């Protein structure tokens, strides 16, 4: 009998996991968006309605002649909120509806999280992309200044969302109150997340404080990518990477712990 090399075993496991996640993804798409109503399209209609509403509000107040293009500003802010909020919220309740699937040996708890995270991240990304293209085509949004910066910012924000989703998701399995508390916290966190302000608008002492928040750094970078020299962005990519790295560890540990905990039941 030829010994199976550990690498081959790992690749085999990876292939199985990919198939599991793929299957879960299809299931999630159908349960998330359904086949009735406009279904999948809500992904774009929701942020579009919000952006248009804000645009109308600003125009009515006569504030649309500010330095920044307000449509692009609102769109980028809402899109980034959508990214972290949906990703984290959806993982708060990932296990319970899929409990029955856990009887399959190869459906692990991390697969449930990963499939939801992938779905939410790609949903938010596609929505941001398509809305940007639509607004660009209608001239409401100018061409971005630096595409690479936008991509990096988006990636870092998605990474942060993944970390938080793993942490909040597994904690809410352990205690239901975590999910409820998180909803409150996420509303409180909304104005602090950097989606609706630029750091440069704040007084100096507040700038230093607010830059401790990883999402603020991401939105700053995102806006520098969008507007270039129109804005004076404050951010540190290194800091965000560090925080993301440090948060990933407890996230994975918690997921592992929850997996053992559920199996023990």
């Amino acid at each position, binding site marked *: 009998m030829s010994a199976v090399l550990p690498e081959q075993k790992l690749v085999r496991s990876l292939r199985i*996991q990919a198939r599991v996640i793929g299957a879960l993804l299809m299931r999630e798409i159908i349960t998330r968006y359904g086949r009735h109503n406009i279904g999948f399209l809500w992904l774009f209609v929701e942020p579009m309605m919000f952006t248009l509403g804000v645009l109308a509000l600003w125009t009515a107040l006569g504030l649309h002649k500010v330095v920044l293009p307000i449509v692009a500003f609102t769109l980028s802010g809402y899109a980034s909120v959508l990214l972290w909020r949906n990703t984290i919220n959806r993982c708060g309740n990932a296990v319970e509806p899929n409990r029955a699937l856990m009887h399959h040996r190869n459906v692990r708890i*991390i697969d449930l999280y990963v499939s939801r995270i992938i779905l939410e991240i790609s949903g938010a990304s596609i929505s941001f992309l398509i809305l940007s293209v639509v607004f660009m085509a209608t001239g409401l949004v100018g061409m971005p200044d630096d595409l690479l910066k936008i991509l990096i910012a988006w990636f870092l924000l998605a990474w942060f969302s993944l970390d938080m989703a793993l942490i909040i998701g597994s904690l809410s399995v352990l205690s239901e109150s975590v999910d409820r508390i998180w909803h409150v916290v996420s509303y409180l966190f909304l104005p602090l997340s950097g989606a609706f302000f630029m750091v440069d608008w704040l007084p100096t002492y507040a700038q230093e404080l607010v830059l401790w928040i990883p999402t603020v750094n991401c939105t700053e970078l995102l806006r520098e990518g969008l507007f270039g020299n129109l804005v004076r962005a404050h951010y540190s990519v290194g800091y965000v990477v560090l925080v993301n*790295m*440090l948060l*990933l560890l407890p996230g*994975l540990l918690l997921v592992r712990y929850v997996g053992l905990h559920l199996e023990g039941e």
Partner: protein
Amino acid sequence: MKTLPKWIRDRLFLFSVVIPTALAFLYYGFIAADVYISESRFVVRSPERQTTSPLGLILKGAGISRAQDDAFVVQDYILSRDAMLTLEKELGIKSAYSRPNGDFLGRFPGLDWDDSLENFYRYYQKVVAVQLDPSSSIATLTVRAFTAEEAQKINQRLLDHAEELVNRLNKRAQEDMIRFAENEVAKAEAKARQAALALADYRNRENVINPEQQAVIPLQQIAKLQEELINTQTQIAQLEQLARNNPQLPVLRKQAEMLKAEIERVSANIAGAVDKSLASKSAEFQRLALEKEFADKMLASAMSSLELARNEAQRQQLYLEHISAPSFPDAAMEPRRVRNILAVFLMGLVMWGVLSLTVAAVKEHVD
């Protein structure tokens, strides 16, 4: 191999913790060159400036105002290409930072091949830093170099140039202010001279000093003549009633006529259709006199505003005050070797944790 504990044989651990930490230990322990930091502190001060807008007052009260915009000017200058080029000309800093006493990563251009000035400018922005403390507006200038002397020298030169810049700004502002006031004075002077000349010219031409004062004497003359005329006419009337044949009568009549003629002549001199009359001269004289008076006043006010501008310029001087002179570091404060090795080690541990957990999660899937 068998004797080694399992966690060392773990390849993940090897790549994420052991190798990075060993590399960091090698670099920071044996290769990394000492970096000396010279620090100086200064403050850019301008005498109290009045806040004009009420919003500004409120903001200032709340401590939000960004005081000392002038410090930003100095900060921008120190970090500019201009400052870098000046230092390159004076001290040759580019070659100073490329010398082999810096290690291969820390010196310019490091692992890059591009040794252009533009690339050096990016390097320059890393070794020179200006930090502004927003509450006290004290600026801290730090310069990193591979020798203590260089760090101090560069810091000193930068400080000198910053001071020159402030002085230049002062001089420019003063000159602008005073030059404007001086121009005004010169213009007023020319006008005053012109008005005085025009008046003198008129006096010479028209043979008159001040028509109104000159008219006083002829008017008194007229009054006297008229009195005499009335007297004479009274006498004539008396004689005509009492002694018709008085031989004095024709004489008196003649006298009255002469008086009338004289009155007419004198009054024509003062006011009359004749060009020579004082009244016709008075209008032109008044205009010229007024013009002169006006020009004199203008000159006086221009002079006083020049004085004011001089004072103001003196008062609005910017000062770059040194709080502490560039220090001469007697020990290299960077790189922080142990701390950096430790940081690499800890990051490696986190990395290893993440990777091994991920691998474990994948491995849970089996046929």
